[in-house]
């Protein structure tokens, strides 16, 4: 199983809750996006695997938490 999370505008677009997906052999983070979102990934989407930033070609393992979110805008001014 892979736990999928979306944040901010992506969360509003693809659903507020967490999503569990079955792990397929050789699955990458981009594959998780395709399976969960069902459409091409927009530009500038950031990806994290188990709370660390990764690229789309990063391999996914059973039990991973994969997150997708837009550019971060913390802080102020």
């Amino acid at each position: 199983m892979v736990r999928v999370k979306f944040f901010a505008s992506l969360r509003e677009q693809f659903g507020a809750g967490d999503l569990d997906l079955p792990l397929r052999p050789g699955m990458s983070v981009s594959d998780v996006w395709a399976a969960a979102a069902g459409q091409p990934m927009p530009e500038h989407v950031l990806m994290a695997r188990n709370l660390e930033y990764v690229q789309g070609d990063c391999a996914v393992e059973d039990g991973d938490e994969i997150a997708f979110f837009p550019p971060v805008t913390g802080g102020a001014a």
Partner: protein
Amino acid sequence: MIEIRSQAFDPWQEIPAYQAAHPELKTRAGASAAFVGTMRDFNQDERVDTLFLEHYPGMTDKHLTAIRDEAMQRWPLLGAMILHRIGEVHPGDPIVLVAVWSAHRAAAFEACRFIMEDLKSKAPFWKKETLQQGERWVESNTPGYSN
């Protein structure tokens, strides 16, 4: 000290509270530098009524801790605090406080700015603005260096 807080805070009370909890700073830290980011009532020429700050629990803590630890490694800091708001924020409310202590001023100035820039580019927070008409997600941060 790293904290994500869902209630309003006063940075000018948080800093002395941190100092009181770390009495060794009093006579050893010759320099302290602080930055406070506050919600403005205008952004991109539009009036903003409220701001909602979302984050990625777990990842936020982890990244703020990593940023603080990297700053402590790069500069001889005696103390460092990062406090960040989440939830509903109103104009004039502080959003972020970064404060550092060191023996001499160069380390304090540089580490404070480093932490703030790293936070803005890496820590998973997102802002949604409520305008007079409708809402919008803030799409990117303003640049941190003028050149």
